[in-house]
């Protein structure tokens, strides 16, 4: 069977689920961010694949570029916050960030 749209979508789904699993299970903030990046990549594969295989012109590719750019901005801010918290806590495990609870 030759590779078609569904193959790309399946690939994206697997990537999405791996990212989801990482977000749920990881304690380290940096690894959770990595899992989120996997989810974003999965969405982007969907966008680009739809843009290629369906009658939708280039909108999907444009969307993918915007996703990549905003992901970079969000990652920069999130990592700045991670490093700042590390300064206070000397740890970046999410469950040690527990002064807020109740």
């Amino acid at each position, binding site marked *: 069977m*030759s*590779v078609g*749209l*569904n*193959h*790309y979508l*399946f*690939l994206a*789904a*697997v*990537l*999405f*689920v*791996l*990212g*989801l*699993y990482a977000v*749920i*299970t*990881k*304690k*380290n903030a*940096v*690894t959770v961010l*990595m899992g989120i*990046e*996997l989810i974003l*990549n999965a969405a*982007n*594969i969907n966008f*680009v694949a739809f*843009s*290629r*295989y*369906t*009658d939708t012109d*280039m909108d999907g*590719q*444009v969307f*993918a*570029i*915007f996703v*990549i*750019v*905003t*992901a*970079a*901005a969000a*990652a*920069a*801010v999130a*990592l*700045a*916050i*991670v*490093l*700042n918290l*590390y300064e206070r806590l000397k740890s970046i*495990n999410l*469950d040690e960030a527990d002064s807020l609870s109740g």
Partner: protein
Amino acid sequence: MQDIMFYMFAALTIASAGVMVFSRSVIYSAVGLLFTFFGVAGIYVLLAADFVAVAQVMIYVGGILVLLLFGVMLSQRVTGVNMRTETLQTVPAAIVAVGVLFILFRVISKTEWLVKAKTTFEPTTAKLGTLLMTDYLIPFEIVSVLLLGALIGAAFIARKG
């Protein structure tokens, strides 16, 4: 040929994403992520999105991954002892993950997408540039404000004192 390339890149992507997810060392996760990004870039090339592929490599590998690595290295002691990332709730998470995967597979295979045969391999760069300056002008400008704000914010937070 295209098919073989697809399976190669898909295998690379999923295998290295697996390394990222299941590895217990943050650095190994980062290396896994590196090859995932690379594999996804290859997938974009197969999808005739050359500009997106290169943007993926440039921003994800050159920007986000380097940032993540810096983050890991600055936040772990230089001796590298505390490099493990523990995992929690693996069993429920696995059940959720498999369930979601099952649903997504059903969605993908049952839905009739509006597939259209498109075989030409056109250059995309000029077209993307035109779209960004015409149809997508406003999102483009919003993103530039967003980048300015993120720059100010990240610099403010990372600054000492």
